[in-house]
């Protein structure tokens, strides 16, 4: 795997699980859209995903990493790229291990 300096600086630098989260998210995107995305690609650029899809990402991150995304964290820029989502999960202290502890709404 080659990493760009951007990814190294933003995602990989914040925790050892970062590549794992990024890979999982890229897999989620690929499964959902049946096309491949770059970790720094703007998902909501012209011709990209809708705000409905952004909310799917909110729910996916909550379910997968056991975090609650509300208040000031609920902004589109936090879901704009895979890198941004990795940063958000780290900031909220999320991990796959903590996911089992939180039920749905």
């Amino acid at each position, binding site marked *: 795997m080659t990493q760009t300096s951007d990814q190294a600086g933003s995602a990989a630098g914040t925790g050892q699980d970062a590549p794992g989260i990024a890979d999982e998210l890229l897999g989620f995107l690929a499964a*959902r*859209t*049946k*096309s491949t995305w770059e970790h720094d690609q703007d998902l909501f650029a012209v011709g990209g*995903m*809708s*705000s*409905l*899809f*952004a*909310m*799917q*990402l*909110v*729910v*996916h991150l*909550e*379910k997968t990493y056991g975090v609650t995304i*509300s*208040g*000031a964290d*609920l*902004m*589109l*820029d936090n*879901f704009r790229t895979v890198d941004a989502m990795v940063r958000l999960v780290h900031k909220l202290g999320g991990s796959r291990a903590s996911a089992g502890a*939180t*039920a*749905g*709404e």
Partner: protein
Amino acid sequence: MSEATAAGGADRWPEELFTDLVGDRAAEWDRTGRIPLDTLRGLGAKGLLCAQVPAAHGGLAFSSRRNGELTAHVGALCSSLRSVMTSQGMAAWTLRRLAGAGQQAALVPRLTGGELAAVAFSEAGAGSDLSALRTRITRDGDEVVVDGAKVWTTNAAYADLLVVFGRTEDGAGAVVVPATALGVRIERITDPLGCRAAGHADIRLDGVRLPADALLDGVDRTPALLVTTALSYGRMSVAWGCTGILRGCLTAAARHANAREQFGVRLAEHQLVARHLAELLIAEQGASRACEHASELWDEGSPDMVTAAVLAKHVAATGAARGAARAVQVLASAGSRDGHTVARAHRDAKLMEIIEGSSEICELMLARHALATAG
């Protein structure tokens, strides 16, 4: 067996309470355009108008599925009252999503304590296109100032708190405005087509000054994600409410077709009438399954809940509009006066094809989903 029945009965206390409370008064509420404020406050104080609120905030902590069944029950009784539930529940949900922890702790318990709330999205120039919002929320030292005009806000005529979406200097957000604040004017819409007692009102906000923390923490560059989040709850609630409309219409039409005779036989034995009954059952079952599916996804925390909610809303609202028209056709003159279950359903269901994402907007979202997931 008897134990299971008793448990089931106890679990249905909210339904029984609403049935007793509405009684035969839905027709009167429809004709007068008013539900007594004490009635709404009493339901609110029991947590029944926003039953998914967690216990920590004084709520009943219902699942989406459980709250949905209750919403359908109320929808079959009175769509105006169900619309009040939709608004109150959407306000509570918006606070849980957009408010910071301190804001939630201060505000959400008020919605389970008897105060009533409305969520104001639409403006004269911003209906389906909420990116065109013009209401302004401006910071001024320790305060925010709100200026704008909202239209067709459900529950606003009853509300103590208004959750108002608007533009901030940085983008978009929502502010919680007490209905009694200086500069707020609420004008009840006196002649709505349907849900006539749901407290629809236009709101004027002229230089309304509030403490800065009235602006919810969820502020974004565009309103898209904030509004989509808030509306998701509203769509679930409208979907279940429309399923209730279909259940009310199916019962009324089947009873009438069973009881009335024409040309020497029961109406139900006339094949063209029987077809209406079949179509009503198909619509009711289809809407029920779509709602159950969406609620189960919601309760699991599945990302598929987002499109499932749009689909359920669309299936239920269009089904209710067509189904109610069929029910009026079956009951004919017996159901053709204002206040009758099917007459109300006919008018109420039509409005449900317009709010929380019109049928056309729902179709566009579903089409876009189909395109985005086709690869």
